[in-house]
């Protein structure tokens, strides 16, 4: 009896998996089809005529894809570094110390996480244009970091809270300063949390569209989300190339997902529920 119901569950799980991941399958298959096949009625669920041309074209002839990839890499890594460096000490401070501003500061980060980008976009645009930062990597980098910081602080704080106080105290008895115990004890213990938040800061920055299309108009500087958006505006129905472009654009995220899934799930649920 038990065995039977278990089989039923596996079947349901599999069915959900198939339906849910169908769009990704479709993206991949479309990138391998010829345009004729894409618009055939009915279009085949698996290409009869495999073609790598869309991929090759994206990766060689049109420089957009690889350039966009490089630009996004620079911007997202930059945003990740800024966000992580600022979030670690802040999360530590908000987890380990008692002070009057503590609660308002936690609230402050919670609220900043909820604000829409459109709210700060115009003012940031004016600010960056005065500073001469438009059409540079710095502008989206600085703006994208604001997406990662509050989230990172909220998640890392729960990590620091869960580390037993005794560890701190033992370090102090051994003559460690606050900073010393932070660097030598807390950082190594909180490493899984730091990895998760860094990864998320990267993913947020990598996925950003609005800052990228607003602050950068120079086609050679565009991040990949912005270049694929512009590509579609130009080549409306060239779906196989667009999907090949899309696959390149999601590659880093998919790799991160495959290799770090365990970290991500635990980190996320920690932060989101106990925020």
């Amino acid at each position: 009896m038990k065995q039977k119901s278990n089989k039923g569950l596996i079947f349901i799980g599999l069915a959900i998996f198939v339906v849910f991941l169908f769009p990704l399958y479709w993206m991949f298959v479309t990138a391998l089809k010829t345009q004729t096949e894409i618009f055939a009625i009915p279009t085949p669920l698996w290409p009869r005529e495999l073609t790598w041309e869309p991929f090759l074209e994206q990766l060689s002839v049109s420089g957009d894809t690889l350039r966009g990839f490089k630009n996004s890499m620079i911007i997202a890594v930059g945003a990740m570094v800024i966000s992580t460096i600022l979030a670690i000490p802040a999360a530590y401070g908000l987890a380990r110390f008692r002070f009057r501003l503590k609660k308002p500061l936690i609230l402050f980060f919670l609220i900043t996480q909820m604000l829409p980008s459109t709210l700060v976009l115009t003012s940031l645009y004016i600010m960056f244009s005065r500073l001469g930062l438009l059409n540079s990597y710095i502008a989206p980098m600085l703006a994208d970091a604001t997406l990662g910081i509050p989230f990172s602080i909220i998640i890392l704080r729960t990590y620091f809270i869960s580390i037993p106080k005794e560890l701190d105290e033992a370090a102090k008895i051994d003559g460690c300063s606050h900073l010393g115990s932070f660097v030598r004890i807390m950082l190594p213990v909180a490493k899984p949390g730091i990895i998760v938040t860094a990864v998320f800061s990267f993913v947020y920055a990598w996925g950003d569209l609005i800052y990228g299309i607003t602050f950068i108009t120079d086609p050679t500087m565009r991040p990949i989300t912005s270049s694929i958006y512009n590509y579609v505006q130009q080549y409306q129905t060239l779906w196989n190339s667009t999907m090949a472009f899309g696959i390149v654009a999601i590659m880093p995220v998919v790799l991160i997902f495959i290799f770090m899934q365990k970290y991500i799930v635990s980190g996320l649920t920690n932060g989101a529920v106990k925020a």
Partner: protein
Amino acid sequence: MGVAFAMPAVIYMLVFIGYPMLQNIILGFKNVDVFTFSKPDMQEFVGLKNYMELFTGKNSILTKSITNTLIFTIGSIFFQFIIGFGLALLFNKKFKGNSFFRGATMISWLLPVTVAGLLFKFMFASTGGIVNQFLTQLHLIDAPIDWLLEPHTAMIAIIIANIWIGIPFNMMLLTTGLTTIPEEIYESCSLDGANRFQRLFQITIPMIKPAIMSVLTLGFVYTFKVFDLVWVMTKGGPVNSTELVSTYAYRLSFEEFQFSKGAAAANVLMIILMVVGCFYIKLINDEEEAM
């Protein structure tokens, strides 16, 4: 000491979020547009003029975009929640492949929304779109539907795309909520002869109410400010039928260069989010006090 650790991040957020936000509120009361943008001496305060102009008139696009945003948000959350809850209940049971299937369904949440939007734009395309093909093959429709070119169906299409993106978030948070329910409660209940539905409504849902509430309010806030998905799929069209407050604010500022009006529209968005946000924060505080 704690403040010193937190300060760099606080200052950063004040400079790049706090200050621009204040500027945006002020900008909403001014007359900055394409003519006065580079002439500070011509910029002046105009009171509530921008807001009046945005809200009045038979065809106020702002009013329409607020309604659209509400429909979009409620439609998305309703299905995300139901499906996410169903999946959380399913994956809470032990079976082979459980963690693999659960893990795999998370990917949609991590993808760059721009790419997900384009993918759905393609699947909903009038010609060559797989959605039309499936519906035709199942004999549910006779002729292809112009999903993204008709007002009602365009709204349905962007909601479906957004549901796909949001399900993992709902599922994950609810799964965590479910793992906090002790097994013994169910055991004592099954002795009492309660059936599955009674257990769901009398134990499971009340026990994870805090998780449910935070999923719903956070979901509301995140969905209400969605921009990229809609910008990529429909750009707010056809004829503003999928125009959200965020896309409208963006259009005003960066396509029509009416910066002050765009700022005012964004401020309206902020006020709505603030109200819901306060509700969420009160919820968290209540929970912390209860613990």
